[in-house]
């Protein structure tokens, strides 16, 4: 499989060399921004791909001298190969990368940097932060903490809460940590925390089991909006009426629609926006078009999405 892709890429490379030779002078002025991201395997990465492609279209239309190349990879190893191919095929002025895993991608990104490429890392950091020129990420602790603060306020610091967590990863741990730390300072009791793997089906069954196990649940927190949809269906089917709030996180468009409509059970969400890839690409493009140099780390906050500001976080055409 990989050998076939490699061979195809080789052919493409050969083709692009001839194209380069033909265009000559014009090609030299072009600035190349390579974007390497995971392939769309679930809602959130689907959103990342969508926003990266949007950024490519918009930037190339606005600035003809910038060429954005978006490359998606289905695994960490594939992403390493993709980096090698990208760097071999042309001189990269900048690389915007959302690494699959920190450990495996650190070395390959360092090699790309050695050729003088500007490195922008998004979401998942590399093990050696010295490699990156620019770092843009969301705040998973705030996703949990902001939701917990809002919930505690609405419940008057009293009540029983059940929690659904995702796939055992740093992202999941941080969200849970942010949530539980805030709840510990209240009289709210967390009845249960179990894994539902960011999967709608598993969230549905887990919520059914929670409902069977606990006669009194005041609120539910699923640390991702995909799971929230399964939770809502289980609650709806059970006919239980004591549950006041069912909250998610991530800013999936179906849930943003509920927030916009003023849903009683899900009046808020918290963003961990896939559009951060777009922000990073724009930041990089800025320094090639209008001399707006950007360096440093940028942590996106996770403000509550309410009916008032929901419009900003709503992307009706995105798959997420």
């Amino acid at each position, binding site marked *: 499989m990989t050998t076939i892709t490699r061979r195809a890429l080789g052919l493409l490379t050969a083709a692009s060399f001839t194209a380069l030779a033909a265009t000559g002078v014009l090609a030299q002025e072009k600035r190349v921004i390579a974007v390497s991201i995971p*392939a*769309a*395997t*679930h*809602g959130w*990465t*689907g*959103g990342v*791909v*969508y926003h990266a492609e949007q950024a490519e279209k918009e930037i190339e239309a606005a600035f003809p001298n910038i060429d954005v190349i978006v490359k998606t990879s289905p695994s960490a190893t594939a992403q390493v190969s993709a980096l090698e191919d990208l760097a071999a095929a042309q001189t990269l002025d900048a690389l915007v990368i959302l690494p699959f895993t920190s450990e495996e991608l650190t070395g390959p990104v360092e090699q790309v940097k050695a050729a003088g490429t500007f490195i922008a890392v998004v979401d998942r950091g590399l093990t050696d932060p010295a490699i990156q020129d620019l770092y843009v990420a969301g705040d998973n602790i705030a996703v949990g903490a902001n939701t917990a603060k809002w919930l505690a306020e609405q419940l008057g610091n009293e009540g029983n809460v059940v929690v659904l*967590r995702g796939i*055992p990863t740093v992202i999941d741990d941080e969200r849970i940590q942010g949530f539980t730390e805030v709840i510990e300072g209240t009289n709210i009791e967390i009845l*249960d*925390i*179990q*894994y539902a793997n*960011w*999967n*709608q*089906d598993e969230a*549905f*069954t*887990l919520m*059914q*089991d*929670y*409902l*069977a*196990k606990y006669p009194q649940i005041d609120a539910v927190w699923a640390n991702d909006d*995909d799971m929230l*949809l*399964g939770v809502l*269906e289980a609650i709806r*089917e*059970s006919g239980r009426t004591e549950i006041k709030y069912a909250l998610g996180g991530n800013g999936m468009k*179906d849930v943003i629609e509920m927030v916009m409509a003023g849903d009683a059970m899900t009046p808020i969400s918290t963003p961990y926006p896939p559009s951060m890839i777009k922000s990073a690409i724009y930041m990089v493009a800025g320094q090639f078009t209008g001399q707006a140099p950007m360096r440093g780390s940028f942590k996106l906050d996770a403000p509550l999405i309410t009916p008032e500001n929901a419009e900003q976080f709503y992307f009706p055409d*995105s*798959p*997420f």
Partner: protein
Amino acid sequence: MTAAVASQSAGPRRIRWADMGPFIALAVVVLAGVMINSSFLSGTNIANVVTRSAFVAIIAVGATFVISSGGLDLSVGSMMAFVTGIMILAMNRLEPSMGGYAIVAGAGIGLVVGALCGLLNGLIVTVGKIEPFIATLGTMGIFRALITWMSDGGSIPIERSLREPYRPVYFGDVLGIPVPVILTLVVVLVGAFVLYRTKYGRRCMAAGSNADVARFSGVSVAKVRTTAFVIQGLCVAIAAICYIPRLGAATPTTGQLWELQVITAVVIGGTALRGGKARVWGTVAGALILEVIANLMVLSNMVSEYLVAAVQGVIIILAMLAHRFIK
């Protein structure tokens, strides 16, 4: 086949115990449930668990055919997601012209697509002469990629106007029995009839226990195995029909890892993984055992959330060992 005949003549009592294995295991798990949490036996909980197990049970009936005829299908989970996606897209497309009948038409399309997916698997295995493990590992990737591509990595939701009329297929009941449970019963009864009472069923066992002997006695092993894969595809489509109304969407994670649950259910049920022996009712017990164990993991407070999968694994192995000793 010869082995089955030999053990049948060995004595009826021993056979009965071996066949009862999965049901005894189910009874033990249920008993454990009652002791762990009193809400386990509540009507809603039992109804939830039994209804939930319907998908794996229905697909596993198909897998009983495939496995007992000497094949293996790893693609069922991905195929389920793919068929679900196609059905929803078809229903959404037909809804403006057909209204509620779009559901029936979409279900019909789903059955055809499921059968074709199964046929594809079957032909790769029999005509292409590729090991079923590898062949279906390949199609597993293909179906999964197709659903991801169809949904752009997001989800394919069903039209709002179709959700309400379609809901009863998962959430409804007839005389108190949930619809998916009735569907499962029908599938199992038909499956048991075909396996135990028809010529095709006997050919399945023959092809599974010794392909060469079967071939010499005039059985077209290729045809028998291909048909088993088609039956598997149909079962996947039937499961998809009652899956869609539950959450109303197909996503790239739909049916993920179900192939393993399905194979586990079949094997716990007493069907031999190497073929030649099929236990359809045992398969259903196997599916129920898996679902009850998962339910108990949540209902009990004894197991750390980090260790749930380990405890499930231990219980499954214990069940298999008990099965072996009963024999």
